[in-house]
């Protein structure tokens, strides 16, 4: 690769020595990013893979759940119900005579549930106390819940039809749930913003920890320290390019999310940018702290994955609800920066600008960032050992 000479030469003109040193460090770091395939791997390829997985691969929306239906007697109302199950977009229904035929399939996981319409169904219906049985595969609780709820839905709408036909009295109480911000309940709408958080964590924490640790390992940090460069310049000059890289990666991910996955962006780009910038402070600070303490790429990567990636994946509210966790773990999430970005980012995408929420989250992230930076600069005094 022929390096572009122009920008580096410009750095020799003007400015105070401090500013020149600072600029020189940033130019150096940017050139290194561009020439190191592994940083591009983490900043571009990995985000796209993750985005793709969360946009396409991982989905909490059950559709076309395979179920078996056992119709013990072929009365007309029973047949209507079977037809309703077969017509439902949530089920892929297969008919059988006996539940014993279906049991092995449920064990093997080939079907997710069995709906039993008893022989007495038609008679019960006339008495007003119809009962059908739904057997689910409890080994996957979430899917089991969906099967239950969807089955109830099918039965309810079937009964509603009878009400409309005047054969049944209307139910005394109806519920009308409305899902704001995401009426179609598409899980990708909240998974994709969440995965952007993970991407920024990987760049801010993992990549930063790696590159700073690499400087320690290769001895270039020592050479830097023996120059008149101040510690703050040294660290900031190192971090700003990664700050920019993180934002760039966020913009890339957002574009893909909006253009390719059809995730709405209802808030302002300004809010998105402000939140991302606030988040990168603790993320970079954490990376810096890890590298300053470990000074070794291998350990740094392990610690970054354990303390950065895993928590931002599991303890941020990205997939799992924080209030549902045991109290000690809920307390732990307070110091995890991703926990503040996930809700805000989901809001920017799906709701709009809700500044009271953003202000609190930005404040929390900056505070954590400050703590990390103070710890990191203590650990990176301009001395060795």
């Amino acid at each position, binding site marked *: 690769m022929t390096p572009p000479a122009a920008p580096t030469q410009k750095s020799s003109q003007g400015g105070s020595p401090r500013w020149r040193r600072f600029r020189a460090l940033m130019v150096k770091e940017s050139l290194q990013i561009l020439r190191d395939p*592994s940083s591009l791997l983490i900043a571009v390829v990995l985000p796209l893979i*993750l985005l793709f*997985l969360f946009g*396409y*691969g*991982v*989905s*909490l929306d*059950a559709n076309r*759940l395979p179920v078996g239906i056992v119709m013990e007697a072929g009365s007309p109302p029973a047949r209507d119900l079977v037809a309703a199950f077969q017509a439902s977009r949530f089920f892929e229904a297969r008919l059988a005579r006996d539940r014993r035929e279906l049991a092995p399939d449920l*064990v*093997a*996981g080939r079907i*997710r549930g069995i709906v039993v319409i008893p022989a007495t169904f038609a008679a019960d219906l006339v008495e007003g106390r119809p009962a*059908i*049985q*739904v*057997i689910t*595969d*409890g*080994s*996957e*609780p979430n*899917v089991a819940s969906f099967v*239950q709820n969807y089955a*109830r839905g099918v*039965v309810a709408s079937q*009964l509603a039809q009878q009400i409309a036909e005047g054969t049944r*009295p*209307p*139910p*005394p*109480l*109806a*519920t*009308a*749930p*409305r*899902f*704001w911000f995401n*009426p179609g*309940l598409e*899980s990708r*709408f909240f998974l994709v913003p969440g995965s952007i958080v993970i991407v920024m964590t990987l760049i801010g924490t993992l990549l930063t920890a790696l590159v700073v640790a690499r400087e320690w390992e290769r001895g270039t940090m020592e050479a830097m320290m023996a120059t008149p460069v101040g510690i703050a310049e040294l660290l900031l000059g190192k971090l700003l390019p990664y700050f920019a890289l993180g934002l760039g990666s966020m913009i890339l991910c957002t574009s893909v999310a909006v253009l390719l996955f059809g995730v709405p962006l209802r808030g302002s780009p300004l809010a998105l940018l402000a939140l991302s910038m606030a988040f990168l402070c603790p993320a970079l600070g954490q990376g810096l702290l890890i590298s300053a303490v470990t000074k*070794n*790429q291998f350990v740094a*990567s*392990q610690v970054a994955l354990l303390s950065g990636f895993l928590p931002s994946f*599991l*303890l941020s509210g990205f*997939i*799992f*609800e924080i*209030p*549902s*966790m*045991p109290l000690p*773990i809920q307390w732990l999430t307070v110091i995890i920066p991703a926990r503040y970005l996930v809700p805000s980012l989901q*809001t920017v995408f799906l709701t709009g600008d809700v500044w009271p*929420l953003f202000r609190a989250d930005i404040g929390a992230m900056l505070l954590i960032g400050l703590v990390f930076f103070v710890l990191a600069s203590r650990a990176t005094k301009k001395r060795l050992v």
Partner: protein
Amino acid sequence: MWTRLKALIVKELLAILRDPKGRIVLIGPPILQLLIFSFAATLEVSNVDIAYIDRDTGRWGTELIRRIDASSTFREITPLTGMAEARTLLDERDVLAVVRIDQDFSRRIEARRPAQVQILLDGRRSNAAQIVAGYLERIIADLASETPGGKLAASPSETVVVQNWFNPNLTYTWFTVPGLIAVISLLIGLIVTSLSVARERELGTFDQLMVSPLRTHEILIGKTVPPLLIGLFHATLYVLAAIFIFQVPLRGSLFLLYPSLVFYLAAVIGVGLFISSLSATQQQAILGAFLFAAPAVLLSGFATPIDNMPAWLQPLTMLNPLRHFLVVARGVFLKDLPAGEVLADTIPLILIAIATLTAAAWLFRRRME
């Protein structure tokens, strides 16, 4: 040959166990994952904060709120005066749902006319929102059955009698912990193997191995057995934790689980060796392992069912060893999976193991030249 192999295997084990960095890998992730996954990673919903607008003057509205309040799912229930407030609370994520009861709610119930409860939910958390909607609907349905009109009509919640096989109370840890056995074996097997060659290359000991009379296949076996043993060890720890700490019922036979586990580990180790042969440094090996592990876990059915994935993606998951072993691990624990079914998922594991180990051996030989 046995002397040489034994020496190599003992050395590999010692190198991993005596290296402080190696110990980080062996001890840190497994414990952390066991803790986080089994306690934090739950799609159950509890401690939910909700709000309500009760414009009703009669007793039915009050009764409904009382019942919601009594439910253990909800933590705080805030009364609101109007929709503007509701909007703010939802926007700022202070509550997950707002229940709205209209003025004529009690009147309509007493008059045996259909009454409506409106529930506004935060679709940003669509999974939790759906589950909460389900809870609320059940509470409302229960209430409905006690209304004057409800005593006549059956509500859907009574119409449908649900029975959850294998896990009657839908305990979430019964689902996650057996899955974790599979995931932890993947991560440990992958990291230990992918580091093994890269580490020797970086430390310069690889040449030392190559000039010894060890043959290539001996080195490969020597690099395969220790991660296999370590993987088995971790898997066993998790099996014990599942049974004794998390009280997951073990209904099937471990004699079916372990053979399948061995082939599963072999498949994973093949991938790890491949990554390791490809990498020049430990750094690259870690990144490579991560690049494989993230999609493998996400596309395995560990957290979200494969049925939910787009149709064209589903066949691809057949190549994922984790997918097959997950079925076996969960099946053996909860379902007493019959031998035939275990075999049906073990055969793909054997094929994948053959493929990955062959590819690793090929690359390993190639890289030596």
